[in-house]
C-alpha cells in the first residue's frame, strides 16, 4: 500500500457522519460508545506508560538521584492503578467489545443501549473520583493490602469509591454483552457458528459479572474499617488481614482472564484470515475460553503462599493452579496448528498476533514456576513476578489489543494506515519489550525484590539494560499510535473487507452505517471457511 494517498475522505462516513460534543456524549450507538472507551483507555495507557518510563529511569541508578524513594512508591502505585483499572481491564472488552459484538453477531446494537452509555458515564465518574483521590500521594501499590491500606493517611477511601464506580461500569457492560449474545444473534448464527472473539467475550463477561461485585464489597469493607473502625481486617478487633487478600484475589485473579481472554479472541480471529486456513479446533478454542473463566475462579490463593495461609490451602491452590495451563495449552496448540501449512501473509495484524503467541508462551510457561509452592518461596515478590506479569499482560493483552487495532482500524474509521510505519513500530516494540522484561526474569531469579527503589550494585547492569529497552518500547508505541492517529485524517480509503475476512462485521461498509446493516444478514456457515472452498471459487 502506498504511504501517502491523497487525503480525500472516504465518500460515506457512516456512523461517524454526525459531529459535535452532544452527538458523542449522548450517543446510544455501540460503535461510538466503543470509540469513547477506546479514547479514554488509551489516554490512561499513555499516562501510565509515562510513569513506567519514570520508574525505569530511576532504577538505572541505585539511589535517590532522579527523585525520592517516597515519590517512587507513589509512581509505581499510580502506574499500577491506571494500567489495571483504567486501561487494561476496560480496554478490549469495553472498547473493541462494544464496537464489535453487535457487528459480529449481525445485530443493530447491544441489548440495552441506554445502559451502555450509562456505564460509560459511570466509568468517567469513577475516573474523576480516582483522580481526585490522587491529591494525596497514594503509596499502597495497586493491591491495597491491609493493614497498611487501612491505616495510611492517603485517600484510600476516596480511591476505593472510584474503583467501586469503575467496577460498576464493568459489571453493567458485561451484563449487557451476555444478554446481547444470547438474544440478538442474526438468523442462522448458532452458538457454534459464532466468531471465537464472541466466545471469548462471553466468557469475559461472565467473569466481570461474577467477580467484580466481590472487589466492590471488599472496598466497602475497607472503607468501613477506615471510617467506622469496624475490625474486618484488624486482628486486634477480631478481624483477619488475610481476609482482605482472599477477597481481593477472588476478584483480581479471575480479572487477569478478563484481560487476556479478549486478546486470545482477537488472535483467534486474525490467524485464520492471514493464514487463509480454517481455524484448527474451533470447539476446543471456544470451550477452553469457558474453562479458563471457570478455573480462573479456583486459583486465587496462589497469590498468598507466603502470606501465612494454611499449608493445606496452599497445596490445594497450587494443585488447582496447574489446571489453568490445560485450556491455555489447548488454545496455543490450536493456533499453531492453524498456521501449519497455511498461506501466511505477514501484515501488521498478523505480526502482532504471532508476537502475542510468542510472548504469551513465555509469560504463560513462567506461571507454573510461580504456582509451584517450592519455587514460589524463592521467586515470590521478586522481579520474576514483574516479568511474568508483563509478559502475559503487556506481551499478551496489550500486543493483542495492538493486533486488534490494526486489524479493525479500517473497519472503524474507513481508512488504511501506513503498513511500512506499522512494521517499523512493531520491530521497535518487539525488541524493546523483550530487552525490558527478559532482563527482569534474570534479575528476579538472582533475587532482586520487586517494588524496591534501592538495590545492591551487582543488579545495576541488568537494570540499565531493562531501562534502555523501555526506551525502544516507548518509541515503538509512540510511532504506532502516531501512525494510526495520522491515518485518521490522511489514510487512504479502506474497502469494506480489506483482509478477505468472513465474519459479519466485514459484510457492511467501512465505516459501518449507524444501524450496522442495511438488511440483517442470514448466516449459513461458520466464519472460518477458508481454503479448499475458496480455491474452488477462484
Amino acid at each position: 500500500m502506498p504511504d501517502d494517498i491523497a487525503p480525500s475522505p472516504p465518500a460515506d462516513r457512516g456512523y461517524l457522519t454526525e459531529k459535535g460534543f452532544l452527538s458523542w456524549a449522548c450517543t446510544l450507538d455501540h460503535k461510538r460508545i466503543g470509540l469513547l472507551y477506546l479514547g479514554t483507555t488509551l489516554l490512561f495507557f499513555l499516562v501510565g506508560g509515562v510513569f513506567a518510563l519514570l520508574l525505569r529511569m530511576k532504577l538505572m541508578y541505585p539511589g535517590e538521584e532522579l527523585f525520592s524513594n517516597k515519590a517512587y512508591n507513589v509512581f509505581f502505585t499510580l502506574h499500577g492503578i491506571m494500567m489495571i483499572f483504567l486501561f487494561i481491564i476496560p480496554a478490549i472488552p469495553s472498547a473493541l467489545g462494544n464496537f464489535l459484538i453487535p457487528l459480529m453477531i449481525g445485530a443493530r446494537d447491544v441489548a440495552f443501549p441506554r445502559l451502555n452509555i450509562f456505564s460509560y458515564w459511570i466509568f468517567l465518574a469513577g475516573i474523576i473520583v480516582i483522580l481526585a483521590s490522587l491529591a494525596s500521594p497514594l503509596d499502597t501499590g495497586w493491591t491495597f493490602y491491609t493493614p497498611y491500606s487501612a491505616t495510611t493517611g492517603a485517600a484510600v477511601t476516596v480511591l476505593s469509591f472510584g474503583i467501586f464506580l469503575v467496577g460498576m461500569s464493568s459489571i453493567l457492560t458485561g451484563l449487557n454483552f451476555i444478554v446481547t449474545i444470547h438474544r440478538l444473534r442474526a438468523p442462522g448464527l448458532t452458538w457454534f457458528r459464532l466468531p471465537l472473539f464472541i466466545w471469548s467475550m462471553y466468557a469475559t463477561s461472565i467473569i466481570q459479572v461474577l467477580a467484580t461485585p466481590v472487589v466492590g464489597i471488599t472496598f466497602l469493607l475497607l472503607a468501613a474499617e477506615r471510617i467506622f473502625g469496624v475490625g474486618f481486617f484488624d486482628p486486634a478487633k477480631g478481624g483477619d488481614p488475610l481476609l482482605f487478600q482472599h477477597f481481593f484475589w477472588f476478584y483480581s485473579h479471575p480479572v487477569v482472564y478478563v484481560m487476556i481472554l479478549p486478546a486470545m479472541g482477537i488472535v483467534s480471529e486474525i490467524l485464520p484470515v492471514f493464514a487463509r486456513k480454517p481455524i484448527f479446533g474451533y470447539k476446543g478454542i471456544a470451550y477452553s475460553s469457558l474453562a479458563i473463566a471457570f478455573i480462573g475462579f479456583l486459583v486465587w490463593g496462589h497469590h498468598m503462599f507466603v502470606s501465612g495461609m494454611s499449608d493445606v490451602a496452599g497445596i490445594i491452590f497450587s494443585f488447582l493452579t496447574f489446571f489453568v495451563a490445560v485450556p491455555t495449552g489447548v488454545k496455543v496448540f490450536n493456533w499453531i496448528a492453524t498456521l501449519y501449512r497455511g498461506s501466511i501473509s505477514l501484515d501488521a495484524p498478523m505480526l502482532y498476533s504471532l508476537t502475542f503467541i510468542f510472548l504469551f508462551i513465555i509469560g504463560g510457561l513462567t506461571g507454573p514456576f510461580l504456582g509451584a509452592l517450592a519455587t514460589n518461596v524463592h521467586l515470590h515478590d521478586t522481579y520474576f513476578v514483574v516479568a511474568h506479569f508483563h509478559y502475559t499482560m503487556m506481551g499478551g493483552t496489550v500486543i493483542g489489543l495492538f493486533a486488534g487495532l490494526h486489524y479493525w482500524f479500517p473497519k472503524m474509521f474507513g481508512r488504511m494506515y501506513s503498513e511500512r510505519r506499522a512494521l517499523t513500530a512493531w520491530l521497535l516494540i518487539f525488541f524493546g519489550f523483550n530487552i525490558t522484561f527478559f532482563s527482569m526474569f534474570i534479575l528476579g531469579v538472582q533475587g532482586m525484590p520487586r517494588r524496591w527503589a534501592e538495590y545492591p550494585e551487582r543488579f545495576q547492569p541488568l537494570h540499565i539494560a531493562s531501562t534502555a529497552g523501555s526506551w525502544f518500547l516507548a518509541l515503538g508505541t509512540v510511532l504506532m499510535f502516531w501512525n494510526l492517529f495520522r491515518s485518521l485524517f490522511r489514510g487512504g480509503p479502506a474497502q469494506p473487507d480489506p483482509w478477505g475476512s468472513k465474519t459479519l462485521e466485514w459484510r457492511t461498509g467501512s465505516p459501518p452505517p449507524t444501524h450496522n446493516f442495511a438488511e440483517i444478514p442470514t448466516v449459513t456457515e461458520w466464519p472460518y471457511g477458508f481454503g479448499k472452498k475458496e480455491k474452488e471459487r477462484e
Partner: protein
Amino acid sequence: MLNTSSTKAYRTYILVWLALLVLTVVTWLVSYVHLGMLNVTVAMLIASMKALLVALFFMHLRYENRLLWAFAIIPLGFLTLIIGGTLADVLLRD
C-alpha cells in the same frame, strides 16, 4: 377494572409480603431464645427463606425459563467457592 389474572397476582404479592413480615418477626423472637451457635444458623436459614421468596415471586424467577434459573443458581456455586476456599485457609492454620 382489574382483570382476574392481575387480581390474582396482587393477591400473591400481598401474601408473599405478609410471609416476609412474619418471618421477620420470627427472626426477632428467636433471637431471645438462647441456642448458642445455633442462633446464627437459625437466623441464616430464615434469611435464606426470605431471599428465596423474593427471588421466586418478586423477581419472577418462578415464571422464568431454565436459562434464567441457571443464571440465578450458578452464582450460588461461586459463593460456596469463595467461602470454601477462605475456610480452607482459616480453619486449617497451624
